[in-house]
């Protein structure tokens, strides 16, 4: 048993311990004050509400560790939901449709990586553009509404059960463990840390930084594609607004989990707890019946506060003065 725990501990390298305590406190609070909160059905709803964000947060963690950011995930999620709906409607069969959707969402990631590498522009601005373009794409393809026609067979991905868990939850856990281990143990993904903390050194060490970056954005977009397919399977339809502002929740979850926007720091375990924390906050909203207008304020506020806390602890640990250049010029090695 101890052996397993030791092995699992690599997943929580840079974790923000406060977030675990915070999540547990929130959970205890909710289960004490909300009747029937511990009902398995309720817990399932709470976790299913955030499963798409959770899956996207896994890719975002790696992107952020590499010193980048991917604002396009929400749009890619919505776009993929529409793509798979259209493909299934065209009757090409589920396996082929899933593969094609993965390829299409992956190519958006390739486009992101390609533009970031070739234009030497900050990932923020490149993915902001692709975010707008593909959100526009969702509106163009659906004419601003909803398209249906997903066959019932497809509902397994979003609604089916596997080993007693809802399939998306199972998928999220498997992906988290696999990506978490690869990130720490596999040579290829582990280099992300080096790229994020010092890309010049990484290049000198013979790492093909451009190729790594492209792969990282492809992974992030493909996971957004998976999230989109899950959504389409849950609703058996696709709406132009799927995944709107999801990027904000995803980035917030990753940052409060302990990842640093300056790159080189972060872990899947932290992101897991970040997602749990945000899901619990969301469930407080639902329990208290607060209007959804409040959500944006809270997620935006959490993001800013998390970054402030990180800066504060960082300045306590190190005496190195941040130069203006480190952040005013958009960062990066170009």
């Amino acid at each position, binding site marked *: 048993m101890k052996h397993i725990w030791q092995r699992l501990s690599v997943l929580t390298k840079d974790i923000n311990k406060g977030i675990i305590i915070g999540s547990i406190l929130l959970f205890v609070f909710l289960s004490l004050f909300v009747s029937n909160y511990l009902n398995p059905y309720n817990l399932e709803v709470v976790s299913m509400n955030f499963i798409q964000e959770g899956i996207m947060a896994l890719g975002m963690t790696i992107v952020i560790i590499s010193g980048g950011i991917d604002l396009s995930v929400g749009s890619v999620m919505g776009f993929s939901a529409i793509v798979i709906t259209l493909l299934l409607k065209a009757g090409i069969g589920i396996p082929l449709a899933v593969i094609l959707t993965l390829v299409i969402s992956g190519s958006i990631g390739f486009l992101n990586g390609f533009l970031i590498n070739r234009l030497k522009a900050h990932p923020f601005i490149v993915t902001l553009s692709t975010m707008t373009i593909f959100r*526009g794409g969702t509106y163009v393809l659906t004419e*601003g509404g909803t398209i249906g026609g997903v066959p019932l067979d497809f509902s397994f991905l979003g609604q089916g059960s596997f080993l007693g868990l809802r399939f998306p939850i199972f998928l999220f856990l498997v992906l988290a463990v696999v990506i978490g281990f690869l990130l720490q143990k596999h040579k290829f993904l582990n280099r992300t840390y080096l790229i994020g903390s010092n890309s010049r050194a990484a290049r000198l060490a013979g790492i093909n930084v451009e190729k790594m970056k492209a792969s990282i954005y492809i992974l992030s977009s493909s996971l957004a594609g998976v999230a989109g397919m899950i959504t389409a399977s849950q609703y058996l339809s696709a709406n132009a607004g799927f995944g709107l502002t999801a990027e904000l929740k995803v980035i917030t979850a990753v940052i409060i989990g302990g990842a640093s926007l300056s790159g080189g720091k972060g872990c899947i375990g932290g992101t897991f707890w970040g997602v749990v924390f945000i899901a619990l906050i969301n469930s407080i909203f639902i329990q208290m019946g607060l209007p959804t207008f409040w*959500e944006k304020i809270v997620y935006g506020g959490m*993001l*800013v506060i998390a*970054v402030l806390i990180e800066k*504060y602890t960082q300045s306590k640990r190190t005496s190195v003065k941040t130069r203006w250049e480190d952040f*005013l010029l*958009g960062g990066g090695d170009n």
Partner: protein
Amino acid sequence: MLIIAIFGIVLTISSPVFFTFKNIRSVLMGMTYDLVVALGMTFVLILGGLDLSVGSNVALSSVLTTILIVDTPMPVPIAILAGLGVSVFIGFTNGFLISKFKINPFIVTLGMMAIVRGVARVLTSGYFVTGLPESFLVIGQGELWGIPFPVIIGILIALVFDYLLKHWAPLNRAVYVGANPDNAELFGIKVGRLVIVGFMLAGLFSGLSALFMSSRLAMGYAQFGEMLELRAIGAAVIGGASFKGGKGSIWGTFLGVLLLAIVKNAFVLMDIPIYWQRVVNGAIILIAIATAMINRQKD
């Protein structure tokens, strides 16, 4: 410049409506909201920063001003000042967090964008604020020789800001800060203070745009200024500003805004579904970055 001329000619030939006074006036009016915000964005970009919160800022300022006028006995000028004040305060908060804690402007203003838009929605629960008095509406709907006030004010502000940016030392320093902030500090420029002032200006201009919008359209609305940050950034970058800071001009930004407005007009005149506009807005920014990249390689 060339692109705009070509676009204008193509449009005039393809649509008889384009070159009518009414259409040109509506293009000018539509671009004024963007122009004012883009001026502030240009300055922030020159400094080496970026402000994603301007669109939300417009929404909150518009909602707050109109609520104060409609729901409280507050006189119109004071309500307007309060609206502008909130906009400047949002800008100050951005600038303060960025320069004091040295956080990337992207992330601060992304968070602020969500917070401010949320507050605007909470204040109105998603409804319009209507029932504004004539004394307020005259700002946006009044005309001089057939040209709406906001267009005139917007162009005047652009001219004044352009002059100040070129000739007034406190603002002129922004170019040095953007080009090399640490050297600028060594030369005695107070970088932190200029960053705060820059974001406050971006806030102030958002407030002005909100004022024009809510008085012209006779309402306050929490959805005002959606995607405005993107258009403002796009216009500034098309006009020659760089994300690396130190570059950008008001004249260039003006042309950038004009180009975006003409493209938008083309969509309307040619009956292309409105949904395509988002796609094109995003593509325009990418094209702008690509051209900037090519220009850089030429140098």
